[in-house]
């Protein structure tokens, strides 16, 4: 499993795609980071007098991490699309299938390899906000909560992307369907927000990726949110295993 993960990560960095995504992600985040700082500078004078006002972490870092989530929503299908679809197109899948490894190992290996790449992206994305610690005090618990949220979010992106990649031979189709599903899950609570009143449980809102991410951005770590992501990840990984297994039968 680790062999496959390592190979996956290594091959990812052999292609220009990984470098491009890391570089472009940094450029966009740098721009957004500066905008947030700018806005904070304007606000600073007016809020400094109020006791208990939101600080640097709430006003710069949390919104920035929310932007990271949006960027990953756009970029992760590009990374996950090739995972299995490309192997299938290059006829290299038999190499893995006839090796003495289980389908589970193949799926987990590929998943892990991609996840490590995403973690590298997250580490690079969090370097900029962390540089603020040079100039002031940061709320490290809030940052940790945001990063946990991002990690869970991106882990579920990868799981969904991996599943869609296992469905088709064309990486593009995998990318488009992954993106559509992710986007749908992202916005699905918009309609829920307008129709429900009060705190009653609503299905669409519960399904939304975003509604489970926002509490984490505010520093609320709920087991229900974490469980949501874990269920999503496990479900899509087992779908992928099933899909590859059934491919041998049909």
């Amino acid at each position, binding site marked *: 499993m680790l062999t496959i993960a390592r190979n996956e990560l290594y091959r990812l960095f052999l292609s220009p795609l990984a470098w491009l995504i890391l570089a472009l992600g940094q450029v966009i985040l740098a721009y957004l980071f500066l905008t947030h700082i700018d806005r904070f500078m304007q606000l600073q004078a007016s809020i400094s007098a109020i006791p208990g006002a939101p600080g640097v972490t709430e006003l710069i870092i949390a919104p920035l991490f929310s932007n990271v989530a949006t960027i990953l929503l756009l970029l992760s299908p590009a990374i996950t699309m090739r995972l299995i679809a490309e192997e299938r197109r*290059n006829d290299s*899948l038999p*190499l893995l299938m*006839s090796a003495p490894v289980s389908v589970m190992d193949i799926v987990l290996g590929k998943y892990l390899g991609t996840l490590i790449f995403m973690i590298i992206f997250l580490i690079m994305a969090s370097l900029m906000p962390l540089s603020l610690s040079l100039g002031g005090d940061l709320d490290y618990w809030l940052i940790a909560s945001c990063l946990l949220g991002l990690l869970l979010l991106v882990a579920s992106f990868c799981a969904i992307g991996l599943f869609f990649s296992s469905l088709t031979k064309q990486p593009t189709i995998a990318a488009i369907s992954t993106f559509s599903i992710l986007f749908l899950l992202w916005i699905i609570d918009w309609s829920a927000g307008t129709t429900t009143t009060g705190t009653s449980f609503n299905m669409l809102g519960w399904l939304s990726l975003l509604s489970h991410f926002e509490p984490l951005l505010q520093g609320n770590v709920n087991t229900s949110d974490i469980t949501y992501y874990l269920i999503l990840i496990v479900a899509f990984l087992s779908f992928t295993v099933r899909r590859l297994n059934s491919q*041998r039968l049909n």
Partner: protein
Amino acid sequence: MSESPLLTASSLSRYYGPQLAVNNVDFTVHKGEVLGFLGPNGAGKSTSMKMLSGNLAPNHGQITINGYDLLSESQKAKAHIGYLPEQPPLYKELSVSEFLSFCAQLNKIPSSKRRAAIQTVIERCGLTEVTNRLIGHLSKGFQQRVGIAQAIIHTPAVVILDEPTSGLDPIQIREIRQLIRDIATEHSVILSTHILPEVQMLCDRVQIINHGKIVFSDTTAKLSQKMESSSLLITLNAAPMLEELMQVDGILAIDELSKNRFRIKFQPDKNPSQALLEKAISQQWQLMELTSEHHSLEDVFMNIIQQETALSERET
């Protein structure tokens, strides 16, 4: 053969939707044996190979490799096979040594033996001069060798090669055949192909498949016997009457190909060449040509297949 066979497959069947691609096919491969698997395109060769390598599950039947069942103990069974599909499964962005190192790890070769295993396989497959080049930049012949290297790196008991020479130029084909012969000294090989001479050159035993069914299964020697001819071609400038020719001992029938060219069919145990020669000289028939006609493997192949088709037509 007193030993139990390395690979046995019994009554394999495989449907694609309603279509029966492979129908009740049996395989046995013993240690050190090269089994040729012969058939026209679309006969079910690749499907069978995929089933034997665990890439495709059969609808019926059982496959046992070195005592392990391919379905219930698939990992142990797969450790004993090396598989080269029709399209060699390669990561084109890796260099040859990187790729082989990945394959070695994938096949769980312990790290202490990995270097040696990679080195051996590079030498055996003649990849020494391209070790550090990217696979995507290599010629088809070299890519095929990398594919073979990948299949034998963990010294499996059985190597399954699916049309290993398709799409190569004649020189490359010769080299790959040499390589296969070399591999066959240490591993059992199942070789699928639609090229008949290849089977004759490389294999100990042949199975011919057509429309998903085995139509011939015997040693290569038996197949060659089938090819032995029982006819002569003769050209006589001053040809006698047919009746006169018929009098030579052993001749069964004569086809008149042209005015002075004949095909002579004879009893297999009574070759009339010598008698014909003597008579031609004594009677001054002006002998120009006397050759024994060989059935090509293609003829035999077509014969077997046609017989089979005729049989099944009669049944229906």
